[in-house]
């Protein structure tokens, strides 16, 4: 099989070879036979390849989401939330960073309501993803009620990196649905497992929480302004810990981002 394919020059070499595609072609014998005859079939084949590549990427994200969901579930119940509360957050909030922030603030001794603004401020980025996605997805009415729930970091990244609209929509729905199912399954397993943990500190789970936030933060530190904002936000929050009620120090980091974002414009305009 592979020898036959590697002997094909041109268009085939120009695209990435993949075992998945070979399998899906074998299972679709008709496409295989007409391959060299028709331009339309080549287009269909490259669509089939693209879909296989999307499914492969979604599979990777799904594995990560399951693991991430399990750690969230375990940390949440050891922070003092019930299994039901932990699962409702995954089902209805369904945006990992906000969920971690919520359980971090609530579990850190803050009043439960102090967790609300922290979660909302972090979820605000999904609004901006939605602005970008609305043109791509073309959903209306009831459909947008479902689609909007799936507009988060991972689905947005998977969607906007695709070249044409058909692939973008396919990527969005495949990633979104797989992610939703496995994130919630992971949460339940993690929450039930976490309930069995007697002493979270003995397992170092209190160190897992800041590490989780840092892992979420890490990929965003690729530009200098972001690094300055991160240091500033951390400094403001740290200084305020002894001075204000729990939950507030985290919120006080937000103005650092606002100031830096607005100043960036001033700098650009004067230069």
């Amino acid at each position, binding site marked *: 099989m592979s020898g036959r394919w590697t002997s094909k020059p041109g268009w085939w070499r120009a695209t990435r070879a993949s075992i998945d595609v070979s399998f899906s072609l074998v299972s679709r014998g008709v496409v295989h036979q007409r391959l060299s005859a028709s331009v339309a079939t080549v287009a269909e084949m490259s669509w089939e390849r693209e879909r296989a590549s999307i499914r492969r990427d979604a599979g990777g994200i799904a594995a990560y989401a399951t693991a991430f969901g399990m750690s969230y579930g375990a940390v949440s119940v050891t922070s003092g939330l019930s299994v039901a509360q932990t699962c*409702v957050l995954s089902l209805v909030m369904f945006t990992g960073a906000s969920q971690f922030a919520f359980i971090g603030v609530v579990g850190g*001794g803050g009043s439960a309501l102090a967790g*609300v603004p922290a979660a909302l401020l972090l979820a605000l980025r999904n609004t901006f993803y939605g602005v970008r996605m609305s043109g791509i997805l073309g959903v209306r009415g009831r459909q947008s009620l479902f689609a909007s729930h799936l507009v988060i970091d991972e689905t947005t990244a998977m969607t906007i990196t695709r070249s044409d609209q058909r692939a973008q929509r396919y990527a969005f729905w495949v990633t979104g649905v797989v992610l939703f199912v496995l994130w919630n399954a992971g949460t339940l397993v993690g929450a039930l497992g976490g309930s069995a943990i007697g002493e979270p500190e003995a397992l170092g789970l209190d160190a897992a929480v800041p590490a*989780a936030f840092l892992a979420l933060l890490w990929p965003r530190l690729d530009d200098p302004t972001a690094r300055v904002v991160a240091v500033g936000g951390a400094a403001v929050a740290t200084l305020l810990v002894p001075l204000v009620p729990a939950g507030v120090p985290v919120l006080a*980091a937000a103005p650092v981002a606002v100031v830096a974002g607005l100043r960036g414009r001033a700098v650009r305009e004067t230069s």
Partner: protein
Amino acid sequence: MIWVAVVVASIGCYLLKLAGLSLPSALLERPEVQRVAVLLPVALLAGLVAVETFGADGRLVVDLRLAGLGAGVVALVLRAPFLVVIVVAAATTALLRAVT
């Protein structure tokens, strides 16, 4: 009380997503608004890292969580996946607690 917060925060987060797909985009597409939106999670996540590392019932303390976080940084620099970072951080802190 926790349930009220869970429900309010969850529905609020959903409405923020819905707003992105539904609202006219003119306001949200302004460059300075976009920049603040990109930096907001950075500031909040950094704040959370700090508070979860040094905060303890309204006091600042340096304890073995910091060692775990340091190990997590090493894992991140080595491009370890999310779960590995968390496990490395937790295991480091747990081990050091067990021996001290």
